[in-house]
């Protein structure tokens, strides 16, 4: 069964990818979507059997992979609680995103390719989460990286999309380099890459040292940090986060699937999978905590100033990933996984909702040109509302709450309960970031759905209105986005004064709304339904079955934290809501005034703490300079000049010389013969 779950998407990807145009759009979409729904349908029973305690961890061997000396690697599929959680997350979101793409990508002219990539991604992700050894995990890790690259650059004719794809790939390379060093080191130290064997041997290794880069380091700290660098790259943690916001150049379903719900959480999954390793190194745990906290704070601050709807959600994702990491850092791996689980639903929902908005607004992504959409696309509005309630963590203690209420509050409480210094800092950051989360989430809702329409300044909308009049229906910039004009605008030349420019947004088709509905249910109920098995001290141990380092003591302490700690999250959530309401609904002049007052601060945040500029100066420019030097001076100036080009020039001049010697006169021919004879005789005599 698990084989089917993993390999159906691969099969579908091969069929759709190789069949491509020959099999046509609909069969390609049917095959991939069908395979994903089948995978999804097979995954839930596994998850439920772990929930009810009916299943036990087991490994299904598939093939021999590598046998070389001491290194022995198998293809095998590991099924335990941790895997089953990831299975339902990946297959559910992927299946819904496949369905959603029927609507969202309906106008694109290379749909089979898109669906093949999506399915290929899903296969790689499933390979990652079912891996029983580090090499197979690395295979999945690189596979999702490849699929991510292909999908970010899906509209490869758009220079910005190509650039974003390359950026994502290169930044991930940095992380992957750390990860591969970690794998090499692990093999060096443990003599195996099998995850269970490594985890079993880890406690004995604690405290031993190893030479690396000319100094002695604690083995476990070094290995954990190297592996964590890989996790930072994939999960866009501070320092290696720069690719994630740019990745929004990809189609929105991709953002929902890969850059919100699944791939970016791979780093969190890896840390949880290897949690017994991280438990042996306090230093590594501190690093994880601090990096997570820094990312949560950084991304949340940047998120408050962005105008692109997808970028806001992207920074929100970045920030929430930070939450998961510091939860893992303080030892609450199950809380991290729970947040991963709920986050997958509400963040996918927010992205798909944003996609629905973008779809309705004719590919306008700038929230400054939205406004007043609540009445035009009510279903999307309610879905987004559910997502916002979930991410901001709305709920009443002991009664009911949206998904984020359980998972995020658990993390905040766990940081406090851990009692360590790093935990304390993380707690402070978590509460402040929750305030920012609430602010930017509501800001998004208010800017998009409330107020008066501000559509007339949007070029996309102007194009749409223009096109609707049938002047020329050809290739405007947006045509490359795979969408065409909404043709039904009969009276588009309406009055301009209402800010609509005569444009009428339409609700998305049902293939897009159905996934929104399903995810809305998840965003509302996932926390309430599943918080007991994931978080509870007693039920949790039974549920996780040792698939991650479960700290029952910490879970107990978490439930016993003071009331003000428990209420703090709700309090800042309300505060954030009120600020956003004042600034964007009550008196919309406040943001502009604030920006002019604190221009430096706003610029600092709006330019994302100048990370891109900094990296440009430190890495990109020198790399280009070195590259140019090696290209112009090293390759063309030296190797080519004295190598191929030099030889070619020599041959040509030799050819000319030979032509001149071939004079046509018999006596000169005879002379050459005699000279040759004389030379041969001389040589024979001397030699």
């Amino acid at each position, binding site marked *: 069964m698990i084989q089917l779950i993993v390999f159906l998407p691969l099969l579908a990807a091969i069929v759709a990818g190789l069949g491509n145009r020959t099999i046509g759009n609909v069969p390609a979409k049917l095959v991939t979507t069908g395979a994903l729904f089948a995978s999804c349908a097979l995954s839930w029973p596994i998850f439920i059997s772990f929930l009810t305690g009916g299943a036990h961890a087991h490994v299904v061997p598939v093939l021999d992979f590598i046998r070389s000396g001491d290194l022995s690697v198998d293809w095998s599929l590991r099924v335990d609680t941790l895997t089953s959680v990831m299975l339902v997350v990946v297959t559910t979101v992927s299946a819904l995103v496949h369905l959603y793409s029927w609507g969202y990508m309906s106008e694109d002219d290379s749909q089979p390719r898109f669906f093949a990539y999506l399915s290929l991604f899903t296969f790689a992700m499933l390979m990652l989460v079912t891996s029983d050894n580090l090499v197979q995990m690395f295979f999945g890790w690189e596979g999702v990286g490849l699929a991510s690259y292909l999908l970010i650059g899906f509209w490869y004719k758009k220079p910005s999309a190509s650039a974003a794809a390359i950026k994502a790939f290169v930044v991930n390379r940095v992380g992957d380099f750390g990860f591969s060093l970690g794998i090499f080191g692990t093999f060096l130290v443990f003599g195996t890459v099998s995850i269970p064997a490594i985890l079993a041997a880890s406690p004995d290794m604690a405290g031993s040292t190893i030479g690396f880069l000319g100094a002695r380091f604690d083995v476990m700290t070094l290995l954990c940090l190297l592996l964590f660098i890989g996790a930072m790259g994939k999960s866009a943690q501070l320092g290696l986060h720069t690719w994630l916001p740019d990745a929004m150049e990809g189609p929105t379903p991709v953002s929902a699937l890969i850059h919100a719900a699944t791939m970016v959480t791979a780093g969190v999954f890896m840390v949880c999978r290897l949690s017994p390793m991280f438990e042996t190194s306090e230093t590594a745990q501190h690093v994880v905590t601090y990096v997570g906290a820094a990312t949560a704070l950084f991304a949340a601050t940047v998120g408050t100033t962005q105008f692109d709807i997808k970028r806001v959600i992207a920074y929100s994702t970045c920030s929430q990933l930070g939450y998961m990491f510091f939860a893992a850092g303080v030892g609450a791996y199950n809380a991290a996984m729970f947040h991963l689980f709920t986050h997958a639903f509400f963040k996918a929902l927010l992205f798909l909702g944003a996609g629905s908005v973008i779809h309705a607004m004719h590919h306008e992504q700038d929230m400054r040109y939205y406004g007043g959409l609540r009445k035009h696309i009510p279903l999307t509005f309610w879905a987004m509302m559910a997502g916002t309630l979930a991410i901001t963590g709305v709920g009443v203690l002991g009664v009911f709450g949206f998904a984020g209420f359980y998972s995020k509050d658990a993390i905040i409480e766990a940081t406090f309960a851990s009692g360590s210094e790093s935990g304390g800092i993380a707690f402070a950051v978590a509460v402040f970031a929750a305030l920012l989360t609430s602010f930017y989430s509501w800001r998004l809702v208010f800017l998009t759905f409330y107020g008066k329409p501000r559509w007339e300044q949007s070029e996309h909308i102007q194009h749409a209105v223009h096109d609707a009049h049938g002047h020329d229906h050809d290739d405007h910039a947006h045509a490359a986005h795979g969408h065409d004009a909404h043709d039904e605008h009969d009276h588009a030349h309406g009055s301009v004064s209402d800010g609509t420019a005569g444009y009428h947004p339409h609700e998305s088709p049902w293939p897009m709304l159905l996934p929104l509905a399903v995810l809305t249910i998840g965003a509302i109920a996932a926390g309430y339904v599943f918080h007991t098995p994931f978080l509870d001290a007693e039920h949790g141990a039974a549920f996780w079955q040792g698939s991650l380092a479960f700290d029952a003591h910490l879970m107990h302490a978490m439930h016993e934290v003071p009331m003000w700690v428990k209420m703090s999250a709700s309090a800042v959530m309300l505060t954030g809501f009120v600020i956003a309401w004042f600034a964007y609904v009550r008196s919309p002049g406040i943001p502009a005034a604030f920006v002019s007052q604190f221009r430096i601060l706003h610029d600092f945040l709006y330019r994302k703490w100048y990370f891109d500029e900094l990296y440009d100066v430190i890495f990109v420019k020198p790399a280009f300079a070195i590259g140019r030097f090696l290209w112009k001076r090293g390759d063309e100036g030296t190797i080519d000049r004295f190598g191929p080009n030099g030889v070619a020039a020599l*041959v*040509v001049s*030799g*050819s*000319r010389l*030979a*032509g001149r010697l*071939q004079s*046509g006169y*018999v006596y*000169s*021919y*005879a002379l*050459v*013969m005699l*000279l*040759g*004879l004389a*030379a*041969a*005789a001389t*040589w*024979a*005599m001397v*030699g």
Partner: protein
Amino acid sequence: MSYAESLSLTLSEVILAAGALVLLLVAGWAGDKATRLISWIAVVLLAVAGLALLGPAGAAFGGQYQADSFAAFAKVLIYFAAGASILIAPRFFQLADGSHMGLRAEYPILILLACVGMGMMVSAGDLLSLYVGLELNSLAAYVLASFMRSDQRSAEAGLKYFVLGALASGILLYGISLVYGFTGTTAFDGIAKAYGDGVSMGELFGLVFVFAGLAFKVSAVPFHMWTPDVYEGAPTPVTTFFASAPKVAALCMAIRVAVVAMGPAAHQWQQIVIFAALASTILGGVAAINQTNIKRLLAYSSINNVGFALIGLAAGTQQGIAAVLTYLAVYVVMTIGSFVCVLQMRDAEGRPIEAISALAGLSRSRPGLSAAFAIFMFSLAGIPPLFGFWPKFLVFDAAVAVGLLPLAAVGIATSVIGAFYYIKIVKIIYFDEPGEEVFAANNNVVETGLMLLTALAVSPIGYLAIPVLGQLSDRAAGSLF
């Protein structure tokens, strides 16, 4: 051994010589009208002579003549090339208006006589029989080169060939006399015995002069100067003949002299052969690049190829000799195929076109011919999976096996240069814009058949022949050791 037995061992030469004389009478009787008939009879004679090679092996006339599998292997190639050269001639000399450019009944007869000479060359077991065979071949060749007497270039080619050939013969004869003077014999086994006792200065000089004379025949650098001029000037069927049969004969003769007569002085002649091999591959590759005449280009190509074959001889081992024989077999097929393609280059009147630029855009008007051209060019360049790759690989392998690594390396480097001009022709055919020149259509069954046959043989299908070819060449080489 009685004369009867000796004569029976030389049956192929007897058949060809007697046949040639009879045909000469027929030609004298019937005149040029009988050319076609005589041509076909000549081809039949070549086939019969080829069958006669199946006879017993042995030494005839007191060791002057050796009938062994080495000679037989060479003769099969020679007869095949000669037969093809006879068959393609009538169409070449024929003009569209029915007149012809001077094909006479003597053409096939001269080729038969040249074959007798070449048979003697490859079978010679004595320097004197070698010289007689060589001159018999050369005299026929001089006449063939100037066969279009009224054509200035053809006459010039014949004259050049004759003058320089005479010089080469002089060098060779001087070498023979030196060898005789210092060893007291002209028989190969006697010479080998004398060289085995140590090589004196006189013997060394004899060796150098003999090899210089032989190098002229195989047109190895620096004795190659006649080749481009003669190839260009001679009628194309004659050029086809020159590029194939005498090359085989001269190389095989050189191999027999080197291995059998002067084997003990291998160290001395190896130096000369290595130099000639290097110089030939390099000059053959470099000088071809600037050529605008397809026949001149193929002349340099033949120099280049001789260089590669000499690499196998330089190795001096049985493996090396077998590699040379395989090389020659494939080379003959490729060369005949390429020249048949060149024969297709004629204008509406039937006059030959030789400019490479006329091939531009040929793929659009003559796809079949273009494909054949491409196959031969790629094969000559030694690009797998075409068969031309295999013999190149064998000679390099043989050279590497005896530690001649630098020689093999240079050989590979020069084959890259060669690839440039071969592939340039393919580029001109397939990618250049067609010019105004349109070739006359081909309606000759013989040419089409030959082109198809040779193209198939050098195509990847040719690899099927490797076991047979390998075994035959190995046995042929083995008969020398």
